[in-house]
């Protein structure tokens, strides 16, 4: 069963990204990604990471991508960009990306060779997670708040109405 779900979700995910690569329509691209990220949320669930899955769907697919969608519309980018001639570089990049694929798989091989180790019970995951966040990861957690503030300030400084004269 899980396998089927995994298969469906991964096909959806990969397919959506592929479609996004192939499509010229910006708005549709954003929607493809919403699909991809939502599927990914499902896959997170399969990995016994329900919280991550939820955050993925809500924050990523929901918030971030919607933001993108608005941006697309704001920039009026629905019409496709004219194709450009420098294809060779794209193919070269694709070829290089495939090499990267091989390397990354190769690198992960050793980790995966150990096989799955069911180390923690899935039930207590959320509670554990909460505890972790406020113990081991407290410092990191605080930093994220700093990060968000910094990003907001930066965004305001760059795109805000006021600011420089």
């Amino acid at each position, binding site marked *: 069963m899980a396998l089927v779900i995994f298969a469906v979700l991964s096909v959806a995910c990969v397919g959506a990204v592929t479609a996004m690569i192939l499509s010229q329509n910006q708005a549709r691209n954003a929607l493809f990604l919403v699909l991809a990220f939502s599927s990914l949320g499902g896959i997170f669930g399969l990995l016994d990471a329900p919280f991550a899955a939820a955050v993925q769907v809500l924050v990523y697919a929901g918030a971030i991508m919607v933001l993108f969608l608005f941006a697309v519309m704001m920039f009026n980018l629905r019409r496709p960009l004219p194709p450009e001639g420098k294809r060779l570089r794209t193919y070269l990049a694709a070829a290089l990306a495939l090499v990267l694929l091989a*390397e*990354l798989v*190769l*690198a*992960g*091989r*050793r*980790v995966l060779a150990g096989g799955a180790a069911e180390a923690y019970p899935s039930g207590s995951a959320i509670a554990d997670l909460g505890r972790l966040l406020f113990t*081991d*990861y*407290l*410092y*990191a957690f605080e*930093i*994220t708040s*700093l*990060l968000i*503030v*910094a*990003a907001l*300030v*930066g*965004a*305001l*400084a*760059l795109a805000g109405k006021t*600011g*420089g*004269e």
Partner: protein
Amino acid sequence: MALMALAPLVAVVAGALAALLLEAFLKREGRGIAVAAAIIALCAAGFFIVRSWGLGLSYFGGRLSLDPLALLLMAVFAVLAALVILMSLVYAPRRGINLGELCGLLLFAVAGLMIMVSSSDWLVVFLGLEVLSVASYALAGLRRNDRASSEAAAKYFLMGSFAGAFFVFGLALVFGASGSLDLISGLAGAGAASGPPAAAVAGLGLIVIALFFKIAIAPFHMWAPDAYEGAPTPVTAFLTIGPKAAGFAVLLRAVSPLLDGGGAASALGPALSVAAAATMFWGNLAALRQKSVKRLLAYSAIAHSGYLLVAVVAGDAPGLVFYLISYLFMNVGAFGVLAALSGKGEEHVSFADLAGLGRRHPWLAAGLAAFLVSLAGFPPTAGFLAKFHVFSAAVAKGHILLVVAAVLASLVSVAYYLRVVVAMYMREPEAEAAFEREDPALWLVIFLCLFGVVQLGLWPGNLLVLIRQALPF
């Protein structure tokens, strides 16, 4: 007690918020106060850094540990930020840059830097890096009405996020392979006998790539010349030093312990050496024919990353820190002179603008010449001594060919540094470029840097002793 360890960081963040709020609420009149707040915050941070010296504070399971390397670099960042703020006092308003925003973002960036250098946890490093990045993107684009500035921000951002993804993937591999995110024990400890597992090394590789991006190591550096050139000059000074210092500190912590070991990490040393050599030559060769001195210095910054990487390869922490401090003075000084030349609004940093500067503004020209000579590594300047220590350590570790490459690369660099001097002293002025006279803060910056360059070159005395005693080599 954790508060004690957090104090510098807290001071900086508080300063950032204070500056932003004061700016936001007091508008024009608040500008001075905002700057003062930022400076005070930096001073406070400095104070706390000094207080923490020798205490060996470490909290959050090492995620925040104020070891000597961290403290030294945090001090460097504080000084750097202060100098950059002083540089901007007149420069920024003339270009429609909001000083409060600049100070705030700058302090956020400094906070990110401090987080990076004071942690031994990859996640915290990553978060610090992101704080730094987010603030840096904004800093680069602060001249909102300037196409180049925005372009710089956009390129920096796009490439930066691209690199960030590599960091994340690397994080995953490291975590998966070693089960730990500790910079040192995570890799070294996992397979004590045979070295770290290959997957972890690959993960580390991906992270290192992202760090290479940040510190502008070839061929991951290509964003740098554009971003450095487009960013406002004081920001450029910051970008060429701050992120670099932090990135190298992280590299030093994470990579140097692996270099002497065998196993899967055995290729790391040669890989770093090749990257270092490539960076030095790329940066220096590409700088040869530049028309803008600012862009030339951008390439020079890339080349200097190559030299700094030699220090990492040699595992020479004292050398690295000394180099960074020296580099701080000479580079801030050089950009300070460029800022002084930039007059009202427009940047005047082409060779033609500098022609005959030695006649028009002898002191400014002498200052820039001194900084360039130091960057080129002529004795008796700080730049020479810094190179001497780093290269000497590298040779002691057996990296002779790397050092030979380094000295040859610096030969190339002499050519373009001296080109600038040629323009200033050996050409007649073509046009009277505008020049900012009434900027005592900038003059102070230039003077301090000049002092630093000479002092560190001739008599680094206690600083050198301090660094050597504090840091292992």
